[in-house]
């Protein structure tokens, strides 16, 4: 039975696609057969971040419309075994997605023996985002440490708990995780940014990880490499921790304190 995980946020530009790419790669690296699905029909990006944009033949909408088989549309990653990308259509819009069609495709992943399906949600709370989360078993809510992003995440959590299939069928609720991205400890210390504690206090959702703001993210995106594969970078390591926690491991939080702090200031600071 494939476990369906939606990566969502409400707000745009917070790092959903980067996180979807990193987390799906991390799961595949650990040996799980994983697919990552781009739900952002019309604004396709995931294929770029995953570095497979030149190999797109068929897309998600083709599979929904029975114009291609799932196996034909899935792009196998050349670097990581067990990792597959299902790109979005760039020429259609989100109305091309239907609940029935999405359910059918997600069912096929289970039949094909996938362990995890990561759904990369579009921004907003409209059709595309709602369909991305409708069938989810787990949700990773991505938030930046600033008020508008946190409020949108809160709204998304409300929708997750009321408009998903699990909510409608009165099943066990979607398991929620919070992923804080673009974290800058120095700016938190200056009071310019919400701290991890502030965000947790407002959202009260278990913390999956904190990804520091990092140059590595932009470089990796431009190069089409999921940042988790840059294992020397802080963001890559933080994503690796997040994947470990997703699988139930305990990992200490890293990269949440300002780097320059000396021994004494750390001693006195906290």
């Amino acid at each position, binding site marked *: 039975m494939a476990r369906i995980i939606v990566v969502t946020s409400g707000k745009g530009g917070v790092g959903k696609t980067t996180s979807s790419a990193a987390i799906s790669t991390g799961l595949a690296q650990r040996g799980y057969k994983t697919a990552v699905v781009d739900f952002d029909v019309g604004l396709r990006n995931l294929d770029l971040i995953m570095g497979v944009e030149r190999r797109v033949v068929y897309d998600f909408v083709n599979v929904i419309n029975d114009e291609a088989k799932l196996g034909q549309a899935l792009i196998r990653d050349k670097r990581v075994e067990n990792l597959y990308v299902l790109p979005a259509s760039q020429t259609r819009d989100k109305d091309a997605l239907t609940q029935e069609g999405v359910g059918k495709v997600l069912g096929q992943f289970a039949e094909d023996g996938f362990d995890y399906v990561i759904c990369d949600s579009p921004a907003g709370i409209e059709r595309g985002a709602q369909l991305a989360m409708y069938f989810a078993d787990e949700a990773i809510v991505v938030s930046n440490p600033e008020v508008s992003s946190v409020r949108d995440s809160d709204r998304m*959590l409300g929708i997750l708990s*009321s408009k998903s299939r699990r909510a409608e069928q009165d099943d066990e609720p979607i398991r929620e995780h919070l992923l804080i991205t673009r974290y800058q400890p120095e700016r938190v210390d200056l009071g310019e940014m919400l701290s991890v504690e502030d965000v947790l206090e407002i959202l009260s959702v278990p913390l999956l990880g904190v990804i520091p703001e990092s140059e590595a993210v932009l470089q990796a995106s431009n190069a089409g490499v999921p940042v988790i594969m840059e294992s020397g970078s802080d963001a890559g390591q933080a994503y690796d921790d997040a994947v470990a926690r997703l699988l139930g491991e305990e990992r200490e939080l890293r990269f949440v304190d300002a780097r320059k702090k000396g021994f004494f200031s750390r001693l006195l600071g906290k």
Partner: protein
Amino acid sequence: MNDTPAFELKGRLLTLTVLRLFEPHVVNLAMALKAKVEQAPGFFDNTPVVLDLEPLQDGHKVIDFPALVSLLGNHGLLVSGVLGGNEKQRRAAADAGLGLFSDRQRGAEPPQPAPEPAPAAEPEPRPEPEPEPEPPARPATCSARLVTQPVRSGQQIYARGGDLVVLAPVSAGAEIIADGHIHVYAPLRGRAIAGAAGDVDARIFCQSLEAELVSINGVYQIKEDLEQGVPGTPVQIHRQNDNLIIRPL
């Protein structure tokens, strides 16, 4: 290839607002209703109601259902059916396109002599002195509504006819409404509206008052005014005349 059914019929128990009708004249009703709605404008927002005709079922009172339905509709009350009433009244209701609830569906209220689906004969005009003094029409109070999950931005929870108890945070942008008291055993960051059906004695209790707005039966304070209060400590809020009094617990 479409084998999913187009619909599904299910029996469900729902709580409905019952409007007990003491007065068949639409004009008098209109005035009474106007006065009621002025207390809480916009309160009845597409609220389904069932008309209880039981107080009018004796005698020959004729009810103009189409006029009544449109009057109530103008105030946001959607008549979904009638309860009680004599044969003629029920037939008139059916002709106006209203549903007929049988008296067995009356629920927890004491059973009334059921209006038999009698033969065409008029129900005998019974001696008038019978109508016993009805208790004033108050919304039936059900037990408090309990919410254990966080109330998120954009969500709205309404405890109709009773109290609301919330055990998790109420986020900024969320709205909780109760006809009775509101208790929040966590930070209250959204909007809280108590006594929404007109109860001036309703109170709001919360663990930490960080609300965007608090209101008791129409008297409200917004965040700007509240911040001069006592943030971060448990408080209760009640209404005194036209003011909200906020006191630490």
